[in-house]
């Protein structure tokens, strides 16, 4: 087997409290390999948000090692972590988090701005990525002018900008109706088929079932780590096929 894209070794996260400490994560260990699509599940308070923040290098583990593409990133400085986030992590948020007064094209350009990608290349790539998610005609639109599903697709295009090692989606369909939710999931399947590694944080079982692997967290501990054949519901497959036929 190839080296994993990421591996967590005895990762813990605790917050000091007046009476002792609160352990948000305890001894979390797992590997994720390239091309995997993983669901991170758990009720609220289970530590899945904390784990996502650690995986996304937004937060530092209190203990343990986090190896991302062969590099231990647990001990990096704030500035170095910003570089790693920029290069290796593509975030997709529940609330989309597009910059409100910037066009979709400019929004997709943001990570490339911080990477120092030259302007013309940046715009060409951003345009290309918007085409990829089917928003070429909306490139100059402001986020306020498009639907939730379109916003999330723009956010996915932005997440892909630097060809990250890992797409990290936090409740990506949480703010969408079921139809647009299916659309986004179809897009994820498509990207996964192209080789992208995805971790989807969700509490929805029918989202989690669509992945080949579900990691369940409870009270900061990995309770179950299950692999199985993905169950892709018909509406998602329909959309996936539709997208393929358009692409072809």
């Amino acid at each position, binding site marked *: 087997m190839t080296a994993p894209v990421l591996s967590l070794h005895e990762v813990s996260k605790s917050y000091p409290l007046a009476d002792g400490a609160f352990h948000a994560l305890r001894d979390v260990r797992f590997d994720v390999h390239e091309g995997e699509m993983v669901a991170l599940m758990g009720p609220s308070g289970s530590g899945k948000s904390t784990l996502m*923040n650690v995986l*996304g290098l*937004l*937060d530092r583990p209190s203990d343990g090692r986090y190896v991302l593409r062969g590099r231990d990133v647990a001990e990096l400085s*704030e*500035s170095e972590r*910003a*570089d790693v*986030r*920029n*290069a290796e*992590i593509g*975030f997709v*948020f529940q609330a989309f*988090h597009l*910059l409100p*007064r*910037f066009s979709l094209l400019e929004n997709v350009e*943001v*990570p*490339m*701005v*911080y*990477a*120092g*990608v*030259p302007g013309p*290349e*940046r715009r*060409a*790539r951003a345009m*290309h*990525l918007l085409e*990829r998610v089917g928003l070429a005609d909306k490139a100059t639109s402001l986020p306020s002018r498009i639907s939730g599903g379109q916003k999330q697709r723009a956010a996915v295009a*932005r997440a*892909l*900008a*630097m*060809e990250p090692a890992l797409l990290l989606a936090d409740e990506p369909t949480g703010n969408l109706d079921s139809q647009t939710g299916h659309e986004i999931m179809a897009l994820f*399947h*498509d990207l*996964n*088929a*192209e*080789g992208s590694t995805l971790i989807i944080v969700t509490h929805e079982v029918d989202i989690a079932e669509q992945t080949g692997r579900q990691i369940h967290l409870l009270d900061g501990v990995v309770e179950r780590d299950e692999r*199985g*054949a*993905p*169950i*892709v519901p018909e509406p998602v*497959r329909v959309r*996936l096929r539709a997208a*393929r036929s358009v*692409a*072809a």
Partner: protein
Amino acid sequence: MSANLPLVQAEFNPGEAVGAPTRRERRGLGLLPITKVALRGLSTNLVRSLLTTLGIVIGVASVVSLTSVGAGVTADITANLESLGTNLLTISGASGGRTSGLVRTGSSQSVTLEDAEAILDLNDPRIAGIAPSVAATVALKFGAENVSASVTGTWPDFEGVRNSEPEFGTFFSDLDWRGSNRVIVLGATVASTLFGNAESAIGMDVRVDGVAFTVVGVLPVKGDGFNSLDDAALVPITTFLKRIQGPSSVGSTSLQAIYVAAADADVIDAVQVDLESLLAVRHGTLDPESYDFQIMNQADTLESLNSVTRTLTLFLGAVAGISLLVGGIGIMNIMLVSVTERTREIGLRKALGAKPRDILGQFLTESVLLSVGGGLLGIALGLGLALGVMPRFGMNAVPTSSSIVVAFAFAAVVGVFFGFYPAQRAARLDPVASLRYE
């Protein structure tokens, strides 16, 4: 049942299609993109941004316009003094004790005509001319025209000493002085008021306090200023004492001033020292602390006037500086609000790879743009005030490049200084908490 999708490799692969993104080592975002982002941030709240810069606009405008006025006043005074001739010493009465301020003429009338004659008797070759001066405000009349003028009695030397060669006609002569002749030299304004045309005044008779004087000369226009003779008229001092000075002061020979012109600038100091000892002996006080006269040379006068205007300019500058400071605090306030409002944007930018210094740079650029923009507007406004408005109120304003540069630099520094704290707060925000911020 689970269906394994026929997941064919799609046509599209961003990596293959465009090539991997070119990463560049960078020290910052670069001035242009960061300025664009900052301008975008500011334009979101255009009215607020404009109001925020108002403090800086007013501060810079007041620095530029007020220092222009200060410089204008200084220029006026300097030009005025230089028109008197540079080798001039002015002896005037002083009420004991040294005065360090402005020229004080006739404060105690303790300088007399006899003092002037004593100086004349020195026959000092270093002295080019001596002109005593005693004045009274008197009504001058020609036909139906009437004007009030400061009529000054003096010696013919006045012409050379005070740089007052008539434009038309001549100055009164030694003969006129010896003979107490009723001749008069008119200032430009006096002549034009009485005769309409200055040239036509020559040879005419004006009534000074009812006594007829023949106009022998008219002085050129000198312009406004405390030494201007435009509103004055000059007569031989002998005539003045006989005909003009009121009966109450008959016999008195006290003067407003004695003007002494040195032959050369190099000897002024020596002449001044000699005159001082001469007068000290004559006035019976050898203690400089109790002198009842003072001798000012032009350099002293210029210096004391300049020190006043310098102080004034400094004071104006300080007031303006305070308003700049207040403007800076306004910027800091608004930037703090802006950082709070845009917490989620900051969190997002960090998630997408912004380093603390990128965020710091973004917000610092915004505050500097605010203050520099305000500075530019303020310079425009200040110049408009100095060149467009002040002259209408009779003020001569000379904008100085140094005040513009200093005000602008100060505004920029204010932007950096007061922008730093909010920007640093933004840079230090925790990305996790900021992304969740509502």
